[in-house]
C-alpha cells in the first residue's frame, strides 16, 4: 500500500514539474514576437520567482514525505501493521486529481482569453500564474498535513523500547542509504566499495572504477554540441556577427541614439554655431573642466603656459598670440579636433560639444587677466601668429552676435 503512495507522490511531482514548465513557457509563445520578454514585467517576474520558490518547497516536502513513508513502509512489514496507509492515500490521490482537474481548466483559459490585461500582462497569463501559485500552495498544505500525520504516528512508536540489534540495523541501513548527492553523482555506497576495487596497487594507492557522474558526462557532451553549433553559426551559416560586424552595428546604433538625444536637447553645437558664452555659470563650468581635466598639465593652471614653474608643453593662452587662431570658433575647433603632431589632442571623444564650448569660452575669458605672477615669455612658439586687434572684446561680441544671428537664421 505505502509503496503505492510513494510511487503516486513521485508521479505527482513529475507531472507537476512538467506542467509548471509548460505553463511558464506558454505565455511567452502565445504572446508572440512583439512582447520582448515576460521577464521585463515586474509582476510576472514576481510570479515566476514565487512559483519557483514554492516548487522548491514542494520538492523538499515531498522528499521528506517520501522518506517518512519509506520508514513507515519498513515498519509496516513487521507484524501488526497499522492502517495508516489507508489514511494517507486519499490525501495524495486528492491532491493528484486536483492537479489534473485544474490543468484542464487552465488549458481552456489559455485559448479563450488573450485580450484584456492585468498589471501589464495578458489576462490569461495572469490567471494561469495565479492558478499555479494557488495550486502550489494547496499542494504544500496537503503535503504538510500528510507529513504531520506520519510523524505523529512515528512519535507514538518511539516510546516503545528499541533493541540493540535494531539500532545496529539502522546504522547499517544508513551506510547503505544513498543521499540525493550520491544519486546525483551516481555514487555507490561506501560499504560496497570492494566491488569497485580494480585491485591496482601503486605504492599503496588503490583505484576504484566508479561510473562517471552522469551530469559530468552529459555536460561534456553538451559542451561539444555547443562547440559545433557555435562554429556552424559563426563560420558556416554566418548567422552570428563577426567582430567587425558587431562593431559596426554598435556604432550605428549609438550614433542614432546620440542624434536623437541631441535633437531633443537642442544642444547641437559645432564649430559653425559656437558662441562665446559669457554667463558666469558657463565660464565656471569651463574652468572646472580646464582645471580638473588635463588642460592645465600643458597650459598651466592659470593658462599662462607655465607648469610647475617651467615653460609647459602648451602655449600661453592669456596673451594675444595664437597658433591656430584666437576666435571662439578657432579655439573650439582646436579643442575639438586637436592639432595633429603638435601635441594637442582631439577632445571631441572626451567632452561634449557643450563642454567644449564652455572650455573655449573660459579660455577666451582668460585674455583680460594678464595678472599672473609667472608669465610665459611673450609669443612662445609664435611662428604663425594671428594677432587680434586691440578692439578684441568688441569683435568678440560682434562675432557672437553674428553667430547668434546665423543660428537664428538657420533655425
Amino acid at each position, binding site marked *: 500500500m505505502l509503496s503505492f503512495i510513494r510511487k503516486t507522490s513521485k508521479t505527482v511531482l513529475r507531472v507537476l514539474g512538467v506542467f509548471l514548465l509548460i505553463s511558464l513557457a506558454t505565455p511567452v509563445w502565445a504572446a508572440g514576437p512583439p512582447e520582448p520578454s515576460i521577464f521585463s514585467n515586474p509582476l510576472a517576474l514576481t510570479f515566476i520567482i514565487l512559483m519557483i520558490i514554492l516548487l522548491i518547497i514542494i520538492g523538499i516536502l515531498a522528499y521528506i514525505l517520501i522518506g517518512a513513508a519509506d520508514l513507515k513502509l519498513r515498519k509496516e512489514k513487521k507484524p501488526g501493521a497499522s492502517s495508516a496507509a489507508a489514511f494517507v492515500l486519499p490525501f495524495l490521490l486528492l491532491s493528484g486529481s486536483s492537479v489534473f482537474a485544474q490543468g484542464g481548466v487552465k488549458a481552456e483559459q489559455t485559448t479563450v482569453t488573450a485580450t484584456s490585461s492585468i498589471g501589464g500582462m495578458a489576462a490569461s497569463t495572469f490567471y494561469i500564474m495565479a492558478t499555479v501559485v494557488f495550486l502550489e500552495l494547496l499542494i504544500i498544505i496537503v503535503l504538510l498535513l500528510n507529513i504531520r500525520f506520519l510523524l505523529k504516528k512515528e512519535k507514538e512508536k518511539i516510546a516503545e523500547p528499541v533493541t540493540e540489534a535494531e539500532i545496529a540495523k539502522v546504522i547499517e541501513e544508513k551506510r547503505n542509504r544513498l543521499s540525493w548527492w550520491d544519486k546525483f553523482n551516481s555514487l555507490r555506497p561506501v560499504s560496497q566499495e570492494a566491488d569497485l576495487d580494480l585491485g591496482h596497487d601503486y*605504492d599503496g*594507492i588503490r583505484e576504484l572504477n566508479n561510473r562517471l557522474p552522469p551530469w559530468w558526462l552529459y555536460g561534456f557532451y553538451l559542451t561539444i554540441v555547443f562547440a559545433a553549433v557555435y562554429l556552424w553559426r559563426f563560420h558556416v551559416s554566418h548567422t552570428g556577427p563577426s567582430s567587425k560586424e558587431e562593431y559596426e552595428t554598435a556604432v550605428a546604433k549609438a550614433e542614432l541614439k546620440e542624434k536623437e538625444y541631441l535633437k531633443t536637447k537642442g544642444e547641437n553645437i559645432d564649430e559653425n554655431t559656437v558662441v562665446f558664452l559669457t554667463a558666469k555659470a558657463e565660464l565656471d563650468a569651463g574652468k572646472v573642466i580646464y582645471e580638473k581635466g588635463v588642460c592645465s598639465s600643458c597650459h598651466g593652471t592659470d593658462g599662462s603656459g607655465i607648469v610647475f614653474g617651467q615653460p609647459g608643453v602648451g602655449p600661453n593662452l592669456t596673451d594675444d598670440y595664437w597658433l591656430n587662431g584666437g576666435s571662439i570658433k578657432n579655439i573650439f575647433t582646436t579643442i575639438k579636433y586637436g592639432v595633429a603632431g603638435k601635441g594637442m589632442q582631439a577632445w571631441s571623444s572626451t567632452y561634449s560639444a557643450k563642454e567644449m564650448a564652455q572650455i573655449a569660452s573660459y579660455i577666451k575669458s582668460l585674455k583680460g587677466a594678464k595678472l599672473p605672477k609667472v608669465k610665459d615669455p611673450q609669443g612662445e612658439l609664435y611662428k604663425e601668429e594671428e594677432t587680434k586687434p586691440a578692439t578684441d572684446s568688441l569683435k568678440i561680441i560682434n562675432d557672437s552676435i553674428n553667430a547668434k544671428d546665423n543660428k537664428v537664421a538657420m533655425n
Partner: protein
Amino acid sequence: MQVEKFYYDNKIVKAFGIATVVFGIVGMLAGLWAAIQIYYPDSSLNLAATTFGRLRPLHTNAIIFAFVGNSIFMGIYYSLQRLCKTRMFSDKLSWIHFWGWQAIIAAAAITLLMGATTGKEYAELEWPIDIAITLIWVVFGINMFGTILKRREKHLYVAIWFYIATWVTVAMLHIVNSVEIPVSFLKSYSWYAGVQDALVQWWYGHNAVAFFLTTPVLGLMYYFLPKAANRPVYSYRLSIIHFWALIFIYIWAGPHHLLYTALPDWAQSLGVVFSIMLIAPSWGGMLNGLFTLRGAWDKVREDPVLKFMVVAVTCYGMSTFEGPMLSLKNVNAISHFSDWTIAHVHIGGLGWNGFLAFAILYYMVPRMWGTSLYSKKLATNHFWLGTIGIVLYAVPMYWAGFEQSIMWKSFTPEGTLKFQFLETVTNIKPLYIVRSIGGALYLAGAFFMVVNLVKTIAKGKFVANEEAEAAPLVKEASHKKEYWHRILERKPVTMLVLSLIVVAIGGLIEMIPTFLVKSNIPTIASVKPYTPLELQGRDIYVREGCYTCHSQMIRPFRDEVKRYGEYSKAGEFVYDHPFQWGSKRTGPDLAREGGKQTDAWHYNHMYEPRSMSPGSLMPRYVWLLDNALDTASTPAKIRAMQTLGVPYPEGYDKIANRDLMKQADLIAANLKKDKIETPSNAEIVALIAYLQRIGTDIKAEPKQTIAENK
C-alpha cells in the same frame, strides 16, 4: 619470487624542496613589491632594475619556473621513485638537473633585472638561457624515462601519464615559441612577427599554464592526495577519459587570449569552443580529487595537509570553470585587459599551485625526517592566513577589473566617453591597496610554514636513502585479455609518442593556416619597416617592459575606437618582432600613440609622469634621459631584421646609423624649441621616435575619411 631491496633517493627531493621554499618566498616578495609599486610608484626606488616593467616578469618567472617548477620536480622525484618501485635512473643526472635548473633561475633573475628580455610573456628569457632550459629539460627527461624503464611496477599509474605528457608538451612549446634570431649575447628577435607571433606566443603562454602549472600538478595530486587521505582513487575510468581529453583539448584554447584582436576570427572561434569543451576534462581532475576524499572528510577537519589539498583542488575547479567563461567573447570583452584576469590567475596560482605545494611539503618533510609535524596548529594557522589572503587578493581584483572595464565603456548621452583613462585607474587605487594586503597575508603564511618545517626538521633525522623492497618485473609471455588502456600503461614509449601526437594536433591546425594563408593577414601598403632609430627605441620599449602595463591592440569596440583611434588591423604588425600587444592595461593603449603628444610631452612624461598627467601611477624613467644609445648594435639589428624578411634595402646596415643620427638630431632640435636640451644620442630620443611612430602608418592611407567622419 625473490624480493629485491633498494633505496629511494630522498636527498634530491630535499634539495628541490629547499629550492621550492626559497624561491617561493623570493617570487612572492617580488610580487608584493610590484603590487605596491602600482599605487606607490616611488617604491620602485627610481632604479631601472627594480621598476615594475622589469619586476613583474621577475615575479611571474620566479613563481612559475622557480617556485612551482621546483615544487613539481620535488614532487616528481619523490613520487616517481615510489610509483616505479626503484631509485632514480641516475643520481648524477638528478644533480645536474637540480643545479642546472637553479643556475637557470639565477641567470634569469639577473638578466631580467638587467632588462634582457624577449618581450614575450612567461617566455621573457633570452636565447642563451632558452638553450640551457632545453638541455636541462632533456636531462630531466632522460632521468625520468630511465627511471620509468627500469621500474618494478608493471603498469604506469595515472600520475606518471601526466608527468610524461608534461615533459613532451613543455619541450614542444618551449622550442617552438623560442625560435629567435640572436643579435648579440643577450638580445634576440622573435622569428615570428605580429599576428603570427601573437598566436605562437599565446599558444605557448596558455599551455604554459596548462602543461607547467596544471598537468604536472594534477599528477602530484593523484599521488599525494590518495596517500594523505589513505583512500582509493575515485574512478580509474574518469582518470583515463579526463587525461586524454584534457591534453588534447587544452592545446587548442590559446587564441582565447586574443579575442577581438587582429587574429583571424576563425582562430578566435576555435579558442572559444575548445575552452568551453575544456570544462568537463578539467573538472574530471577536480572530481577525482574530491571524490577520493569520500569517507575521509572527517580527516579533513583534523589534517592540515588535507585542508590545503581540498582548497587547492577547489580553487582548481573554480578557475577552470571561470577560464572557459572568460573565453566567451561577450565576457572577455569586459574582462580582458583588466584586473579580472589578474584575479583569475591568482586563484590558480595562490590557490591551486601554492596550496598544493604547501600540502606536499607538509606531507613529505615529516616522512623524510622520520618524525611528525612540529605543530599542526601552526600549519592550520598558515592555512587560514593563506585562505584569507587569497580572498583579500581576489575579491578586490574582481571588483577592480569589473568596475574599471565598465568605466572604460561608459558614454555620456551626447556620445562622448564619460571617463578619462586616468580616472578609471585612480578610481581603483584603494582596491590595489587591499590586494597587496591580501598578498602580504599569504606571504606571512608562507613564513609560518618555514618556521614549522625548520622545527620539524630539527626534531627529526634525515633519511637520505630510504629502504624499500619489491619483486623485480618479469616479462610474461602472454597477458590475459586486458582492458585496452592497461596495455598502454605497460608501454611508456608508446604513451610518450601518443601524447605528442595528441598535443601536436591543435597547434598545427591553428598555426599552419595562419602562417601560410595570405588572406589571414591582409597587407597594408602604407605600413613600412621601422627606421633604425625607431627600431632602437622599440628595443628600449621592450627592455623596460612597457608591455606589462600598456597594450598595443585597439579592439573593435565603440569605446576603444573613440578613446584610442581606428581599431588595429592584422597588416599593421608585419614588422613587429616581437609583437607587443600586451595583456593588461594599467596604462592606456598605445597602438595609435604616434602624433598624439609632442616630443616634449613624452620627454617630460618619462622624467616625471605626474607632471604631465597628475595622479598618474606610471613609474619614472629617469635613466632614459642620461643613458647613451648603443648605436654599435644597429648594423647587427638591421641584418637580423633582413634575415627575418623585413625589406630594408641591400647594404642598409652600413648606412643605418647615419639615418639614425639624422632623425635623432631632428628630434633633439624639436625638443630644443620647447627649451629641452638633450644630446641626440640619449635613449629617450630613440624611445620618443618609436612612440611617435606607433600606429601612424595606417593614417597615411585614407586621410580624408577620418576628417569626414567628424
